[in-house]
């Protein structure tokens, strides 16, 4: 698998192939280091192991029942893993730090708020007549508009400090949750009921009706991000250098925020909010790859996320016998890691 992956990641340009001197001097940027090849190989092995474990454990001969159901779960976990990893890496480059994630800044909470407000305003009778896929699409479009406008304004010129952003994010997240709760309380019980079935997806109750459209949206987001990978690399030098190098900063940030909102919508619709997964996988990826190149970091972070989710879910279902949820485990581990990162940052 890593051998197959390598050429697409490090395709030399025609000029490099035809010019040996250029090829020699290009080695530092266009090709994978030995370390990165090992990382890809290791993660591919881990992924295969996790998949084998998840798909074949304890089937007891009921293949025709277990396999389709489990495969669907794997696809959902993959979509969620890629969406969370990608949105986090992009957001961290945008905000020039490794602590903030879309979840910590309240993106998930905003999605839940938008979904709730839509049911609240339209009424459950109307909502019941609308195709869930259309509802999801409407949610996502609204979310992309709100999130981009709001966070564009919050991020400003990229000159606000890290702690200001964390504070604003925590306040925004709490505010969105409170508004959502307020609507729950004032809502008609029937409407509340219909909301619960769509909103409260989790790892144990993945909303698979949205898997098709969610997967399609993910593809759109991923293609867009990989097309912008070069711009993301430039952006990682900081706002001022990016502008000096001719990047249209304002436009690029707006596009990236739209993509992040799209990806957060996909993962939140499928499994609900998971606060700290992105933080864990993004930082693990940076430590593994030790590069600034987004093509590599995005791929590794996504692989780490898929491995973590599939292996975690397998262990949870078969070893721990459903005693606990993957979301809560991720939040405990990730929460501790988040506090650790904050303390480290405060000391340096």
């Amino acid at each position, binding site marked *: 698998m890593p051998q197959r992956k390598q050429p697409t990641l490090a395709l030399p*340009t025609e*000029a*490099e192939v035809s*010019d040996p*001197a*250029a090829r020699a*001097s*290009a080695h*530092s*940027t*266009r090709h994978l280091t030995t370390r990165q090849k090992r990382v890809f190989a290791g993660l591919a092995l881990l992924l295969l192991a996790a998949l084998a474990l998840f798909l074949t454990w304890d089937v007891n001969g009921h293949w025709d029942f277990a396999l389709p159901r489990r495969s669907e779960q794997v696809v959902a976990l993959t979509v969620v893993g890629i969406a969370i990893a990608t949105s986090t890496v992009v957001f961290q480059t945008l905000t*020039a*730090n*490794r602590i903030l994630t879309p979840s910590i800044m309240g993106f998930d909470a905003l999605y839940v708020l938008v979904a709730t407000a839509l049911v609240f305003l339209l009424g459950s009778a109307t909502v019941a007549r609308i195709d869930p896929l259309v509802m999801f699409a409407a949610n996502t479009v609204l979310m992309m508009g709100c999130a981009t406008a709001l966070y564009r304004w919050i991020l400003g010129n990229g000159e606000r400090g890290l702690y200001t952003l964390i504070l604003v994010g925590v306040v925004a997240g709490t505010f969105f949750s409170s508004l959502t709760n307020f609507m729950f309380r004032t809502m008609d019980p029937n409407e509340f009921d219909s909301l619960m079935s769509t909103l409260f997806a989790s790892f144990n109750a993945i909303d698979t009706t949205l898997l098709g459209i969610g997967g399609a949206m993910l593809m759109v987001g991923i293609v867009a991000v990989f097309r912008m990978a*070069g711009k993301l*690399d*430039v952006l*990682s*030098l*900081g*706002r*001022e*250098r990016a*502008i*000096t*190098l*001719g*990047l*249209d*900063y304002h436009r690029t940030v707006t596009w990236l925020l739209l993509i992040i909102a799209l990806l957060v919508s996909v993962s939140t619709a499928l499994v609900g909010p998971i606060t700290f997964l992105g933080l864990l996988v993004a930082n693990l990826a*940076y430590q593994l790859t*030790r*590069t*600034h190149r987004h093509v590599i970091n995005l791929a590794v972070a996504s692989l780490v996320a898929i491995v973590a989710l599939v292996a975690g879910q397998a262990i949870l279902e078969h070893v721990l016998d459903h005693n606990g949820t993957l979301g809560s485990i991720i939040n405990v581990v990730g929460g501790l890691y988040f506090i650790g990162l904050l303390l480290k940052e405060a000391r340096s």
Partner: protein
Amino acid sequence: MITIDSLTKTYGDTTVVNHVDLQLPDSGVTSLIGPNGAGKSTLLSMVSRILGADAGHVSVEGVDVFKAPSKQVAKKLSILRQDAHTTARITVQELVEFGRYPHSHGRLTPECHAAVAEALEYCDLVDLAQRPIHQLSGGQRQRAYVAMVLAQDTRYVLLDEPLNNLDMVHATGLMRLLRRLADDKGKSIVLVLHDVNYASVYSDRIIAMRDGEVVHDGPPEAVISEHALGDVYGMEFSVHTVGGDRIAAYFR
């Protein structure tokens, strides 16, 4: 030529740059001097479109820096600022390759590789090319950023206090490098300096600012004088001629 027309920046009630009109030449070394808060860095930031202006225009060879596509401006003008350095894990060579972004958008052409190699050579960084920038000393890192600007290969190179945190060995080395750039490659180097003597020795033209306005503008012989410096900084200077250079003393 960079034409600055009535450029203004205000923060609250404080006008940092007040209707400045200037023309910066298309070659040679031009230094901006003046006390802290005179508006030198703000002026340079606006000229390089990193900071928006409240009023006025800047054009580089007829291209409006605020209105033209950022890409187009990036091929004419580059700036090196003293900002917090990047958190990205990159090597010196990768940093310098970023300088080619306006020309190649990440897909380096043979021409780009040549420019990168030349910039590394010019800044004496060949041996350090594969070192991560966060492992470099202050002087080395500064040279790496200069090499990046060099690889960008713009006619106009703006530098905001490039000598900050450099000892005299590295400061003099950098000034020589910039002088060579202007002489060999015909570039226009515009830099903010705090040390008036570096400005005196290396500049073709010195622009002195105070309270957001240009108060003196001319060759070193005109601006490095007891009268003009006293006027700019509000303290006493004694100016001596040492080996053909005008050196200002201000230590007592």
